[in-house]
């Protein structure tokens, strides 16, 4: 009887924690695909809030922090197209602690370094003349680290390609070099297997879009 009670207790604890992590994965699985498809500012806020709730409940998982920060940065990137530069910094201010938290929980991760690159590029783009020196350099450094940590990460080549594609030729940009990088990214995407169903896998639709451009 004692033994069966012990078994019952153990299995109860096991099941509960299993249920808990299954709940986490299920909740994440419901949200993660939306990262690749959500473009509207309101949609991104909603998505970011959902990730942030999971992040705050779990506390030790880096992925929800990562995705929450990514959504805010993606939202900020939308404002470069509409030239509403003054809306960028407030969003970056929300993204910054989320990014820092992800980095604290998961050290030396290529995906987080990619996000760090995006964060710094966004900060720079809000005021390029004055921030080129500081944020421009940190962005380049972060991307270099991301590549070093995982040369097979397709998002490294996507981000590098976007940089090259949009930088004027006089500053070392090149549309053809950009294209080459998008093709490289495509190859990496084809070979890329995310560590789990909820690990970062976004970006392929962007690569496809860039490959259709001239």
């Amino acid at each position, binding site marked *: 009887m004692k033994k*069966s009670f012990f*078994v*019952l207790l153990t*299995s*109860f604890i096991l*099941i*509960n924690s299993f*249920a808990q992590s299954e*709940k986490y994965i299920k*909740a994440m699985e419901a949200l993660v695909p939306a990262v690749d498809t959500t473009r509207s500012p*309101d949609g991104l*806020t*909603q998505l970011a*809030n*959902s990730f*942030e*709730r*999971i992040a*705050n*409940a779990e506390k030790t998982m880096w992925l929800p922090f990562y995705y929450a920060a990514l959504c805010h940065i993606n939202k900020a990137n939308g404002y470069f197209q509409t*030239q*509403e*530069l*003054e809306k960028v*910094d*407030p969003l970056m*201010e*929300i993204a910054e602690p989320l990014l820092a938290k992800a980095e604290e929980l998961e050290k030396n991760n290529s995906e987080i370094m990619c996000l760090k690159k995006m964060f710094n590029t966004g900060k720079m783009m809000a*005021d390029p*003349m*004055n*921030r*080129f*020196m*500081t944020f421009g*350099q940190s962005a*380049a450094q972060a991307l270099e680290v991301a590549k070093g940590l995982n040369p097979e990460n397709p998002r490294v080549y996507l981000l590098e390609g976007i940089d090259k594609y949009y*930088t*004027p030729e*006089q*500053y*070392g*940009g090149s549309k053809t070099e950009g294209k080459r990088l998008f093709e490289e990214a495509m190859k990496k995407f084809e070979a890329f297997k995310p560590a789990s169903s909820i690990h970062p896998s976004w970006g392929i639709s962007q690569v496809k879009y860039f490959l259709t451009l001239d």
Partner: protein
Amino acid sequence: MRKFKTFSAVVISIILFQAVSAQVMVKGIVKDNKGNPIAGASISIKDSYDGATSDSLGRYSFKAFEKGPQLLVVSNIGYKSFEQQVKLESGVLTIDVVLKQEVTELTAVVLSAGTFEASDRKRAAAVLDPIDIVTTASANGDITGALKTLPGAQQVGESEGLFVRGGTAAETKTFIDGTLVNNFFFSSVPNIAQFGRFSPFIFKGTVFSTGGYSALYGQALSSALILESIDLPDQSSANLGISVLGINGGYQHLSKNKQSSFGASYSYTDLSLAFAVIKQRQDYSKVPAYHGADANFRIKTSKTGMLKYYGYFSSNRLAFTTNSIDSLGYLDKFSIQNSNVFHNLSWKENLPKRWKIFSGISYTNNKDDINSNMQDNNKNDVVLNGLEFKEFNVDTKGTYFNVKTVLEKKLKGLSAIRFGGEYNFSYDRLIYTAYNNQQYPNAVKEHIKAAFAESDIYATNDLAIKAGLRFEHSAILDKINIAPRLSLAYKLGKGTQASLAYGIFYQNPERRYLPSPNALTFMKATHYIAQFQRSINQQTLRVEVFYKKYDNLVKTGITNFTESAINNNGFGDASGFEFFWRDKKTIKNFDYWVSYSYLDTKRDFLNFPFAITPNFAAKHTASLVTKKFVQQLKMNLNASYNYSSGRPYYNIGFDGTNYKFNDRGTIPDYHNVSFAINYLPKIGKKDAKSFAVYVLQVSNIFNIKQTFGYQYSYNGYRKEAIVPTSRMFVYIGAFLSFGVDRSDEVINNSL
């Protein structure tokens, strides 16, 4: 088998329990305290996945899986988080939420009356970026040159300094990292404006107050120029510059842990080459040559603390002759030798309980050796009968010491109180030697002690008030003054605000009119400023009106053949209207600003026979500054146009008892068009190990005749226009830096 059954039962009951209990619906509306809906707010049950985001009408709803007593948290950027205990049982729970605005630097109104800020902080007062200081074509790489394109400052070309809103250059004081800087400019030379001593690249922030400034600063009737030096560099680097004016080189080292840095630089400027090509009005026997060296260190004393040192040394000399206005066929010779040492040490640190300390010390030692005499056509020194006074020598030595400490306590939001003290010591020694070797020495020692307190009150994001009080004691005057300061700002709408400022400002009589035979008191100015500013999406409009009243200005008289202060019976006023418009948006890669100032001022001071518009005040002043970046050429094309309407000029003579006008009139309008090209061949090359900037700069490109005033012969019969040393000036230089991309240092004019 039985065990498995139990196991299944447990699993099923757990799943069932969770499914069955997921029944509470939480909904409501999120609004701000004005009743407007807040979209995008995050609503959550603390430490759970449950929650939602409010829609464009502020509405939210979600099904809660959690049970029992829980904490509902509602948050949104710019608002204080809202928390409420809720009991999740069943049915529908409606919770409407009102979020209170959080007062933050990004959202709060800014106290901007009378203030121009050049910084990278995104604030309403920051209408300029740090880089604007060096990319303004007419600025010649000089800090005050750029500020002269802003409303409030005059286009005075015959002497250095900032003449603000009817005030003299001496009414503007400069502060580096909180402490007073004496000798901000190179020593005065008759009718030739001198440059500032400090490179614009050592500063990251510039605040130019054209009136109504904070109680932390004093001893300036008109204006305060507040400069903040850079923190740690981004990386170690070496740089080298070569131009038609000279060479400079430097090195900055950043420690591996990025907690400290040190650096030094040296520059040698020699105008021989430039003067050989560009004909000067003066005939130089010693072409201006400057040695300059500086050194610095910066140490992060903690996460929030920073200790900074900047030390500067310079030595320069020049000598020239001009055709004498007093005696035909003879020459007037002027020569000066200057050496200057400046040390500045500052420390700031965050203390526990939201306290902050700032402390700074500066020390200056300045020596000038000035010679004046007459020469015949063969450049032999001569002393002419009746003109003996034209031969003299002035030896001056000045020692200045300034220490200041400010304590700040942050209250709720952005509100804060600040208080502290300041001590200013100055010791000026002068020996005047006449043609007959008779010496007239004098020395003036002064101690000014000040205490100040001010408080920033941010009631909401829309209303801010700064109230301050400054108390000073001057040893030489043996008097005290109490100066209240007040400014407030109110947000009218998105990016639009109105500001007001009021203040009383005191200043000691200028050293050059001391010692005085009589007891003197502080000179006094009272400022009233009203401002409207709209800054939306890369466009800034700023309109300001002001009234300034002067009391107790120094009047001078002739005692012992020298002009010195005799009483404080002077007075005056100034009023005006100023306009500033900047637009970075309308045309891509093109940035321009327009400023206009209207000034109506009269004063009776120094030797003025009665209240008149002083010779340094123009009624209309305007500037247009344009900056165009051409990506294909990798070039910055900057042009500027400065205008000022004719200023009055006077020849005031002393008839033995009274001052009277011997002559007066108005000089022609002033026009100056300047142009600069900066070529940056390596911009954007991320892996470049070196960076180069090539500069071509032409001032007064259309060769327009500029007249700054008139000078008169001793007997008053002859007058001569005061004009620039050359009509046009061309500057060519190359600047290289190694180890760091310095693309923001588009011009490094080492003048």
